């Protein structure tokens, strides 16, 4: 596998991750719904919950970092720093999707021990949009994981070729 093929694959993976993070941000930010429950207007927005705000911020940071690396990828002097920052951004992405998933699980199924009722019956469209955003966030995390494994494999392949 030549260096050029490796570079094309990494650039492609980063572009995919950028697309996934942007999709997650857009779908999450545009999700809001109002419902009438017993004469009370009940608005569900993403900003009601700190977890979803953290999700949007973390995806924005990851997307911005992907864009930066794609734009500056011509200089290959900082490739070690890129791999290290990739580890940090992967941890950030997995943390944001995991936290959002935990709270969304409470919203969908409730928690009978704590007396928390599920809210998805009252605002089904909001729940659907949040599910879509979470799927996009999950895809971004997996793509970054694959990207990191591919970078490490690209470094390791000289070792694979050496016969001991």
């Amino acid at each position, binding site marked *: 596998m030549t260096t050029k093929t490796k570079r094309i694959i990494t650039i492609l993976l980063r572009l995919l991750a950028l697309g996934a993070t942007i999709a997650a941000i857009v779908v999450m930010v545009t999700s809001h719904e109002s419902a009438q429950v017993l004469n009370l207007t009940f*608005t*569900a927005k993403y900003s*009601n*919950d*700190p*977890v979803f705000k*953290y999700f949007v911020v973390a995806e924005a940071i990851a997307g911005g970092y992907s864009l930066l690396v794609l734009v500056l990828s011509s200089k290959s002097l900082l490739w*070690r720093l890129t*791999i*290290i920052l990739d*580890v*940090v951004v*992967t*941890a*950030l992405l*997995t*943390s*944001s*999707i*995991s*936290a959002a*998933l*935990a*709270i969304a*699980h*409470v*919203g969908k199924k409730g*928690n009978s*021990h*704590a*007396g*928390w*009722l599920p*809210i998805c019956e009252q605002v089904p469209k909001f729940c659907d949009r949040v599910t879509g955003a979470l799927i996009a966030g999950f895809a971004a*995390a997996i793509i970054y*994981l694959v990207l*990191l*494994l591919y970078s*490490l494999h690209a*470094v*390791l392949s*000289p*070792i*694979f*070729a*050496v*016969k*001991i």
Partner: protein
Amino acid sequence: MASENANKPDSKAPMVPSASTKPKNWVLLLLRVVAFCATAAGTIVMALNKETNTFVVATIGSTPIQATLTAKFQHTPAFVFFVIANGVVSFHNLLMISVSIFAGKFNIDYKGLRHGMVAILDMLNVALLSAAVNAAVFMAELGKHGNSHARWNKICDKFETFCSHGGGAIVASYIGLGLMLIISVMSILKLLSPKSTYQVANP
């Protein structure tokens, strides 16, 4: 390309003496031991987290009706994931510590891939730990402050010991996460530096 790499170790300058790598090995080992202690503490404190309280639920006439409620970590899937992930990361750290200590004696190596496997496993464990500890901290925040928009009441005013123990476990796990991040970066740097790739070929 394989023959070029095989020839390079011979033509390179004499190997760097191990005195310069020994301090780095000791630092990595020490960081791993502290990270193991931190994540093991997080696992144990959260796994033993349980509190039972009796409340007056209603009053019929003059006799109060009491209900006994228990708060356990198994009630929330996020905390179950937290306990399991911290256990896995502690086990991984223990394994890596033993591999570092016994690598010289038993010649644990697979075609020179030891450093590569350590780097990849460290990176995967960082992702796992970061997911678990962040899910737990946001669930704890929900339990502490509730959510008025969704009509979810806070539970920390009734179960104070449960909340404080959980908070302590999460703080210990965050320390473990920070250390695991440093360890992972050091493992990857060990892999990427030119000396190590050539040394791996000659054990």
